[in-house]
């Protein structure tokens, strides 16, 4: 066993672990060691790179498959109840958290271009919810009513305005509701930018290595061991292990309720620009990336750590994409893949300390929104380590909430979602 001493150990080299490493190394002179094991399904490598704080908070974007819009239910079953759906809206604390984080991107983009010489391709696109019929329109209306504080961040378009804006969108779309602050980045380059920035600030990267054991002494984490026979004594251990965060929790005998939620994604060949905004429909989301590829996602499946592609699910995404953008019919699918979102039962992240365990911080459970919430998560964890005031109140995101007898799960990690 090779023994080393460091101030901080971070488990996980996805976007959250890297953001924490970057922010903490920028704000302090602590010695920081990040341990990462590449695993099939890493969500940051599978991400679409949407920065959709409003879209995700109201159940669109990556969460769209969560529930079926009325028009979709009627298509499948003409006898479906006729009352409109209620948008699946996350609490205001989450909307606030993700909006503040989203606002950090323009400055972060400049900063990392300078500090890391990596351009993570921040693009101001907006996110459009496409409406195909009156049911979709009624649904969009409800979304608007659920977020009165953000009215000036929304834009309605009728069919004609939509087509002036988005030439290739299907003539079947009757209009769109645009979320103006929802943009996109290249997720891999974002991770790379944090990573290079962190390395320049002195963070040590231990790659192709897995945390195998967490050593506790009197309810305090004192060291972390790896499967490469290393032992890192540390004063703080940060769990940013994504879909594998629960396994880290098990090493300390705490049950961190994070479980993999599979999402399948399709990407097209490179195309000249065919869309200005990112698009969400009740079937899928669609985003054209900086290199011209069009990315379509995504399913929401509880299949454990399985990352295999499946025909019916991919086919339904493909059909949804052609419905929104008929031009895609003649375009080639280049690749498909799936990622494992780190799902939590209330769809909120799990941040900060756990009562009764000293020297340990959670930075996990980011579900569908790790990319957009990475800057604020990095800042919050850095502030917690350094004993500073965090930019927002993290009480709703503490692990403690799961111990409350009134805790209610909105998302069942055990059962298949419709």
């Amino acid at each position, binding site marked *: 066993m090779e023994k080393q001493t460091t101030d901080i150990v971070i488990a996980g080299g996805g976007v959250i672990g890297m953001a924490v490493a970057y922010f903490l190394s920028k704000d302090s002179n602590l010695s920081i060691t990040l341990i990462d094991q*590449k695993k*099939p399904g890493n969500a940051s*490598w599978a991400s679409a790179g949407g920065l959709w704080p409003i879209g995700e908070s109201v159940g669109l974007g990556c969460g769209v498959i969560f529930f079926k819009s009325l028009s979709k239910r009627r298509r499948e079953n003409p006898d479906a109840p006729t009352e409109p759906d209620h948008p699946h809206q996350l609490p205001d604390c989450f909307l606030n958290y993700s909006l503040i984080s989203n606002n950090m991107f323009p400055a972060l983009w400049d900063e990392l271009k300078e500090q*890391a*010489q*990596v351009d993570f391709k921040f693009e101001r696109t907006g996110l459009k919810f496409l409406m195909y019929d009156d049911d979709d329109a009624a649904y969009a209306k409800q979304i608007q009513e659920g977020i009165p504080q953000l009215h000036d961040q929304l834009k309605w378009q009728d069919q004609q305005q939509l087509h002036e804006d988005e030439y290739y969108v299907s003539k079947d779309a009757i209009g769109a509701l645009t979320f103006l602050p929802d943009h996109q980045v290249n997720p*891999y*380059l974002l*991770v*790379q930018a944090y*990573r*290079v920035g962190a*390395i320049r600030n002195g963070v040590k*990267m231990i*790659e*192709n290595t897995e945390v195998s054991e967490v050593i506790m002494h009197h309810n305090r984490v004192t060291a972390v061991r790896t499967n490469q026979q290393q032992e890192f004594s540390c004063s703080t251990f940060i769990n940013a292990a994504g879909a594998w965060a629960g396994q880290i929790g098990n090493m300390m005998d705490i049950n961190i309720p994070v479980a993999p939620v599979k999402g399948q994604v399709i990407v*097209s*060949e490179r195309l000249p620009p065919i869309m200005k905004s990112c698009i969400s429909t009740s079937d899928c989301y669609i985003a054209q990336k900086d*290199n011209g590829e069009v990315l379509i996602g995504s399913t929401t499946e509880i299949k454990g750590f399985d990352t*295999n*592609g*499946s*025909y019916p699910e*991919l*086919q339904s995404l*493909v*059909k949804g*994409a*052609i419905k929104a953008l008929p031009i*895609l*019919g*003649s*375009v*080639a*699918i*280049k*690749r*498909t*893949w799936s990622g494992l979102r780190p799902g939590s039962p209330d769809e909120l992240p799990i941040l900060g300390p756990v009562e009764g365990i000293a020297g340990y911080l959670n930075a996990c459970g980011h579900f569908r929104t790790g990319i957009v919430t990475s800057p604020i998560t990095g800042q919050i964890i850095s502030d917690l380590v350094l004993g500073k005031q965090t930019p927002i109140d993290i009480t709703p995101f503490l692990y403690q909430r799961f111990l409350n007898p009134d805790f209610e799960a909105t998302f069942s990690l055990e059962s298949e979602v419709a």
Partner: protein
Amino acid sequence: MQQISLPVTPCPVIIGGGPAGLNTAITLAEHGISSIILDENPALGGAIFRQPSKKTQQGHSPVLDEKTRDRASRILEKLDKHSDKITVYHRAQVLGQLSADNAIMVLHDHHVTELHYSALFICTGCYERSQPFPGWTLPGVMSVGGMQLQVKSNLVRPGDRVVLTGTGPLLLVAAQQFHDAGMQVVGVYEAGQKMDLYKEIPALLADMPLLFDGLKYLAYLKQKNIPVHYGWGIVKAKGEDELSEVIVAPYDNAWQPMAGKHKALKADSLAVNYGFTSRTQLTQQLGCTHHYQPNRGGVTAEIDEWHRTSRDMVYTAGDANGIYGSYVAEVEGQITAFGHLIDSGIINQSHANLTCAPLRNNLQRLIKFQHGFSKLSTPKEGLLSLPDPDTVICRCENVMRSKIDLAIAQGIGDITKLKMATRVGMGDCQGKNCGDFCRNYLAQKTARKHEEIGRLNPRFPLSPVTFSAFAGTGE
């Protein structure tokens, strides 16, 4: 063209109608087993036996030598004899496996079909290693096989003055074919040293007829005044909009071009082949266990003596499982069929052992011969130094060497992270072309082992398919 009609009960499916796949199908048919061959080309035979797509007056390609032509017609006659048991689909693309076990997705005639199999034989052959060097993307620069394909299949002449560089006996064969097709062959530049060839004479004597073939090619080139230079290789290709000049130089023992000894050759075509890579995208996508054989085609599936992979009822044979050439592929195709006959209880192990004993003897001799050549022709590290900083490495994504160098300087040490940071291998070919160079370059620059560098996992679909075909709404 007919759509794929699904058999009532799943039958063996053979991917690739080259020497390995055809022999598998024929051997199965001889034992009463029906099978399906999926081949991506308009005609069977694989790269070695491919017939011209346009009929010539002679009815065969004038540039297939007599011996190859005889081999091709022998095997196609056998296939004909068993046509009731062998269904062939031409222009069929295997896209890979999705969720269903024991099924592959096939694109054929604009339709995507989920084809269930009782056994899967992956006989996908190999492709030429792509070797980046300055100017390699200029029009006029091609792989040797690509140029052969033009000459053989389409009967077009790629240019007037051709230079061949690379390694291995293919260069000699191609030089003769190009000459016969009316091109002026400026010279053949073989990277291997002549001394190394002499050292391998005992191994090469293992197969007298093959050795004789080689000498015949050499004698032919000599007779036609086509110079063969050993220990020489490519430095760069030059030209404004298309190739006009090829720079070659003597190579040192590591195949690094010697400075100050460059020689310029006027040419409008350059054929390059620095070896082959086994085509293992499908075995990889299926999750078979693989290992790395640097001199034998790179990453290949681990197999037993009957060519069983680590996955039940999935077999692989021929160049797809290590580069040994078409003679070996023919024998392996038969052996793997016997493997399946054992596994499906049609014949017993001892019967199979007896029947295959002469095949295995033959195989041993052929492989010994091939090992002799591989010592001469194993690509060496010096080739990694050929590209300049502004040479494109990944042609799909247009990634230059300098971008890879920057990523390495930023601490990247495995192929997956290199892909995410630079987009190498993210194009249509999924790293089929640049993957090998990138892995070796990373290993060299970071002094890491191949296991640490990792490999690019091929994703579904293994070749592009349109949205409408996949949705099932396609024309």
